[in-house]
Structures are given as C-alpha cells and as structure tokens.
C-alpha cells in the first residue's frame, strides 16, 4: 500500500493556488486597453476587492461570422482575479460570439487546473465580464440581443446590487 501513496507536492509560493494559476498571474496575457473597443464589460466592485474590465473588438471572419478579434482586460484584484481574467481572454479570442458565450466558469476553473473554492467567484466574474462586454457591443449596435443575453445581463446586474449592499456593512 505504502508505495502507492502519492507524494503531495506543495508549491513553494502557496499551496492554495495551482502552478498554472501562479504562472498565469506572473505572466498574464492580453492585459491593457483596446482603443475604440466594440464593447466593454465592467464587473466587480473595488470595495469588495475585485474589479474586472474586459474590452472586445468584434470583426467578421471569412465565413461572415462575428468573432472576437481582439480582447484585453484591466483588473484590480487578487491572484485568482488576475488569472481568471487572463484565461478568459485566451479562451475566447478568435471565437465566434455564440461560441464565446458558451464558455462557463467551469471551463475557466479547468483551464487553470483548479481554483480554491473560496476563489470560485473570480471565475464567475471573468465569465460575467465577457457577457457584459458582448451585451455592451449589441447595445452600441442597437441590435437585437442573441437569445438569453439580456437575461444573463439582468442577473449580473442584480447580483452586483446585492453584493454592493452587503459590503456597505464593512464601512460601519
């Protein structure tokens, strides 16, 4: 039995985060602004410690489908927030809008080799930022929203209000 026991390798920086999270945090991809973006998604709240801004540039591919041609982020937050921001840009860059909207928080977590449970909300934040950026794009275009987008936007907006109310308590 003894030789079957797996040796646990604890990362020298923090056993809390996977090596992939730490590597992504150390060298994040696609951070910064996009000039004249097609849409911007702003989620999170500085009071609670995580703010994510996602910029997207939409263009048509050869098949005439709308794709995310470029994507950049600006994030104020912890290791997990910066890592999930970077990963979401990698996951959706070049994808069609409809495929990009299929990315879930679990995809984000898997791509990072896992996240501590207490940091799962950072993966939600990354997906929400993308949804908000696409919503913003459609809003700017004055076009009808794809199926389900308006509903997702409304949930994000409502959650944000709930969180903001909760963090008011810290100021007391």
């Amino acid at each position: 039995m003894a030789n079957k026991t797996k040796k646990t390798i604890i990362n020298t920086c923090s056993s809390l985060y996977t090596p992939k999270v730490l590597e992504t945090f150390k060298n994040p991809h696609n951070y910064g602004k996009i000039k004249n973006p097609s849409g911007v998604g702003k989620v999170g709240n500085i009071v609670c410690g995580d703010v994510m801004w996602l910029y997207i540039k939409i263009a048509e591919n050869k098949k005439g489908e709308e794709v995310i041609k470029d994507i950049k982020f600006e994030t104020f937050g912890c290791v997990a927030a910066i890592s999930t921001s970077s990963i979401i840009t990698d996951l959706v860059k070049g994808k069609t809008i409809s495929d990009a909207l299929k990315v879930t928080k679990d995809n984000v977590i898997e791509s990072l080799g896992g996240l501590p449970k207490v940091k799962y909300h950072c993966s939600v934040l990354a997906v929400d930022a993308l949804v908000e950026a696409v919503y913003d794009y459609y809003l700017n275009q004055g076009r009808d929203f794809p199926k389900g987008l308006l509903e997702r936007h409304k949930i994000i907006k409502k959650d944000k209000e709930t969180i903001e109310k909760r963090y008011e308590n810290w100021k007391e």
Partner: protein
Amino acid sequence: MKRIYLDYAATTPVDKRVAKEMEPYFAVEFGNTMSLHSFGQTAKIALENSRQVLADMINADLNEIIFTGSATESNNLALKGVALANKNKGNHIIISSIEHPCIMESAKWLEKQGFKVTRLPVDKYGMVNPEDVKKAITDKTILVSVIHASNEIGTIQPIAEIGKICREAKVYFHTDASQSFGKEKIDVEKMNIDLLTASSHKIYGPKGAGLLYAKKGIILEPVLHGGGQENGLRGSTVNVPAIVGFAKAGEICQKEMAKESKRLSKLRNKLIKEVLKIKSSHLNGHPKNRLANNVNFSFDFVEGESLLMQLDMDGIACSTGSACSSFKLEPSHVLLATGLRPEQAHGSLRVSLGRFTTEKEINQLIKVLPKIVQKIRAISPYGK
C-alpha cells in the same frame, strides 16, 4: 534564490540557543510535572524556574503566571475566566475595536452568554483615547481589555494611563501583549496591569506555549478543567520543553532588548522613508508610537494578495490585511477601525522585522517593491 522572511509578527524562527535549552526535556528529562518521582520533580523544577524568569520580565510574582498553550488560549482565559467568575459583580466588558480575533471572538461569545460588550473606537493612528475608557466604565463593568501593541499596524497604546483609570474605577484591566512582550519594557506594577497575555513563538521561542499573568487575588474560572495543573486554572499535562524554550527566549529578548530595538527602529525608519516615495503610498499606524519591528503600508489601486504573492515570487515574505487573503473574504477590521476605506485596506502590506533581518534584506525590499507596485497598477483599471 535566497528567501527573505519579513513576517516576524506572524511567527518567528526558534533561536538556536532556545532549541539547545529545550533539547534535554524531550527524551531525557521528559517527566510529568505532577509526578512525585525524580523524573517528575526534575520537570517541575524546570517549569518553576521558567516561571520565575518570565515573571521577572514583567515585575510579577512567580505565582501570578499561568502557563497556557498559546496567546489565544491566554486571551480566552482572561476574558471568559474573569467574566464567568465575576458575573455577580457585573456583566459589562470593554474592549478596543482593534483587538486580535481571539479577543473579538471571545467577547462575541460572552455576548451570547448575556454579557454586554463595549468596543472602543480608535483614532486614525489606531490609538485608544483613555478618556473613552473612563466614559465607557459603568458600575456594571468588570473588565477592560486593550491590546498593548497592534499585531497589524504596530501602534502602542497608552497602557499605563488606561490601567490607572481602571485601577481607580476598581475594574480589572487586561492587555494582550503578544506583540510587545520581549520587545517593549513591561512592568505590571507601574503600568497598573491586572492581567497580561504573552506568547512564546513571537519571541524566537517554540509554538505551543503562552502565558497569562493574573494579579494575586483575581478570581478566574478555568476554561480547561482537568487534573489540577497551573493551580487548577489550566488542566493539561504541562508542555515542559516548550515552556523551558519560552523562558530562554524571554531571557534572551530581555538581555538584548535595548540594542535590538535601536537596530530595528533604524531599519524600520529607513524602510518607511524609502517606500513612501512610491506614488500614492501611505503609512498605517502611529508614526512614532509603534513597535520597532512593524511597518504597515497601503498602496492605492493595488490589491494586497497580489502584492504579497508577487513579493513571494521574488523571495520576500510579508503579510496583508486584504479581504482576498482572509478566509472570510473581509478586509482587516483593524485597518477599517482606523478609518481606512475597504479598498485602501485591500491594498495593505505589513512588513515585520526581526532578529535575523539584515540591512541587505531591507534594501532588497526597497529595490523590488516599487517595480511590483507599478506592475500591479499597470494591470489595474485604476491609478494610471
């Protein structure tokens, strides 16, 4: 990469001299202090000698020192022990709003048992105003507890003054000296202290030992009921090696205190001066009345956990009051009590120096910190 440890307020390495002193008590003089045979009596003598050394450090009597397993336990015993044993006198307890969680949580538990708790405010430097203590005391007050030096921001409280007010009002006064014991001069007589908590692992002693000084005549209800150890106030087989180490650690600190305090203050002041050159950086805690080994900064538009981890990747270990690094995801209650907004508390960095900190290490931090802050701000949507 050589790692640099600047988190001495969290814990300290055991001094080699301390480890050497402890060594015989693991396998040779391993007796139980309650045993009457020679093994037990040798351990008992070591225990009482240790008690004397630590009592002398704070000008207390040998019989006024109760050994515990940690400062947390001492603080629990002080609050719960005094409250439960003195409820016939009153049901009101006063604490500051910047206590360590073990005081905050003990007070909260006592509230559930029907006690009333007043939490005193602090000013922007984290100082308690003794006048506020005076005003808060009622005829129902049985205990005041104010931390001697803040574990987060290093601010040192006017303990003697607060003690005097409590003495005059005939209210017990407890102070958590976990961060100051062995670093600052403490005289329980001169400072009017009735109860005091100290810890071993903050002063280069081992983990697993703490003490509570309780002035003669104070009645306490034990938290751990058992076989009569520590005058019946703390049941448990006594951890002799840890206590022997605690005493040796205390002795070394006492001997080296003046010199070490001067050395660390100089390094601390240099660090403060250089780091405050970073744009939008602030010093938390009192500019003068602070521990020689504590520095606490806030950097606007920087999140503390990111800062901590970037520093760790460069081999430097510090601490933060950011919500993201706490399991409750709430920012430091100490920083909020000093009036910082949550977003400022998120950007805090505690650097705590110690016996093995060199000027070279401080210079290394001064060199890398501005670059790291700049890198994090470059990723952030704010502060450009």
